[in-house]
């Protein structure tokens, strides 16, 4: 029988204390793991979806709102800009690539996005089946749209006005699905893509062409400074940088995240105190157990190691459970979450979680230190003669 088995049997003999300590540690670690993974994944998703997009030009208003609506398809658009203004901007020598977007309709909650084929090359979209649109009212749908609505090429669907409701149906013109995109775990999975012309035709606006926004790529480094300034000063549009706006969003979220993080750290420290109190209290009853082990030939060192091991075992199991709990919670949130743009994934692991585990082990060792030293100091003769 080794020290591990002895410690484990002792822990098991007090199931309530064991459960309490495990729960405390697991909750603290779980929250930290969830924050760590969640923030990393949200940041990663935001970056992935904005990759290649240096700047968004759109109607004046909140730059954050413009980025959220045109890059991540979360918020409402800030308004419309004229096609002429957009074309003028696209022709600017500082612009390498410009992709116009026209938003405003949805199909079963999935946003219908009017764009040109530049959008597909910007995000590296590939077709799983069918072809891209050629005529008006032909659409290419994201993999998730096809899966959830059970659509295949050749199907006809009706869009409705607005970004989420299914009430104001465009019943006069159906869209025809001509292609389905490969799944790529980005926003495009949840989009219905079509030509700008289809959007205009659907709204009977063949004369006055308006679009929602334009995604821009800089040609030179210098454009980073000059282009936004030019757009904001001398056009009716505003320019917003996805990188800067997501950083701002994170700063806003930061306060809340920080609060939860400190709460989780406090919970972990509290669990350390709880482990300490349990070990310290149980020592009073276990002093005979330990003295007897010494009588049977265990050295002081073994007794010390056994108590340390017990603390470390508790918090190690607790931390492991916590990390699993964090992943489970994240997976659940990902499953039920409303915004697919930054879908959370509980099955992704990060090397930093190793630090969480290490912190757990250390808390256990520190909590067990004083009880372990007391066990080390037990005087066998005195203990055994006072029974």
């Amino acid at each position: 029988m080794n020290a591990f088995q002895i410690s484990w049997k002792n822990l098991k003999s007090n199931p309530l204390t064991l459960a309490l300590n495990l729960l405390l540690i697991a909750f603290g670690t779980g929250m930290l793991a969830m924050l760590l993974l969640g923030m990393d994944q949200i940041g990663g998703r935001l970056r992935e979806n904005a990759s290649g997009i240096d700047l968004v030009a759109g109607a004046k208003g909140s730059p954050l709102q413009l980025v959220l609506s045109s890059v991540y398809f979360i918020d409402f658009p800030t308004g419309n800009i004229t096609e002429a203004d957009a074309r003028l901007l696209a022709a600017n020598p500082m612009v390498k690539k410009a992709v116009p977007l026209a938003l405003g309709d949805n199909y079963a909650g999935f946003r219908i996005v009017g764009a040109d084929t530049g959008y597909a090359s910007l995000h590296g979209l590939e077709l799983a089946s069918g072809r891209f649109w050629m005529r008006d009212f032909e659409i290419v749908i994201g993999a998730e749209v096809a899966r959830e609505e059970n659509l295949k090429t050749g199907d006809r669907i009706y869009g409705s006005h607005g970004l989420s409701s299914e009430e104001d149906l465009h019943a006069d013109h159906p869209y025809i699905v001509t292609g389905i995109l490969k799944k790529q775990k980005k926003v495009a999975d949840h989009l219905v893509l079509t030509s700008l012309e289809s959007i205009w035709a659907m709204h009977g606006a063949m004369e006055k062409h308006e679009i929602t926004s334009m995604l821009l790529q800089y040609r030179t480094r210098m454009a980073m400074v000059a282009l936004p300034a030019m757009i904001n000063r001398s056009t009716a549009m505003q320019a917003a940088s996805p990188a800067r706006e997501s950083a701002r969003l994170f700063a806003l979220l930061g306060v809340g995240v920080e609060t939860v993080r400190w709460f989780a750290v406090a919970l972990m420290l509290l669990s350390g105190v709880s482990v300490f109190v349990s070990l310290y209290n149980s020592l009073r009853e276990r002093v005979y157990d330990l003295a007897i082990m010494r009588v049977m030939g265990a050295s002081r060192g073994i007794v010390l190691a056994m108590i340390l091991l017990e603390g470390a075992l508790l918090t190690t199991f607790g931390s492991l459970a916590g990390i699993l709990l964090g992943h489970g919670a994240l997976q659940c949130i990902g499953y039920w979450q409303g915004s697919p743009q930054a879908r959370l994934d509980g099955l992704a692991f990060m090397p930093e979680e190793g630090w969480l585990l290490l912190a757990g082990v250390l808390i256990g060792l520190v909590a067990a230190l004083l009880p372990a030293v007391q066990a080390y100091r037990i005087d066998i003769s005195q203990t055994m003669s006072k029974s």
Partner: protein
Amino acid sequence: MLQTTSLTKAFATGTTLHFPDWNVRAGEQWLLLGESGCGKTTLLHMLAGLLKPARGNVVVNATDLYALPPRELDRFRGQHIGIVFQQPHLIRSMTVEENLVLAQSFTGAGKDVSRIREVLGALDMGHKRRSYPHELSQGQAQRVGIARAIVHKPAVLLADEPTSSLDNRNADAVIRLLSELAASTGSTLVISTHDDRVKDAFFKDFMFELSHERISDQLEKS
């Protein structure tokens, strides 16, 4: 097998207690007699390597116990000495069998289940192998305590007031079993007691009596 020379125990009060020299040969069975408080437990703990004397030495199996470094002493005690206490103090989180496996693993000999079955069988405790200590009666627990002390076939088996918490029937059985088991493993046996039941039941010839007067005289001087 067991020899003490000029053993002395110093008390915190400043007084010292001198024990007469004692020589026990291998396989002998002794009673250590004396009223309670006259130093029997102290002497027994010294013999067991649990209590370092102020002066003098204890030689067990040709090894001077207190000349060993602490870790060596722990190991020596685990391998060569078995001790039965007044209370058995079984490990509560373990079954009877696990308590004995634990004893075996501390001696470094490794797990030997057939030996455990043999000892439990001899003590008529085989059916309680999987019971936890709180499921045992006082007498049963004491028998497991004996099994634990003898399972590794120690050279010396020491028992400190093993019958004081037992009724007549159990006390009788415990003394008989201690004597029989010690004889069967060839262990040298020393039982300390002030229990007359033991003195009457114990038919062996060797008795080592700590003089009541002398020790209390010494203590009164403090």
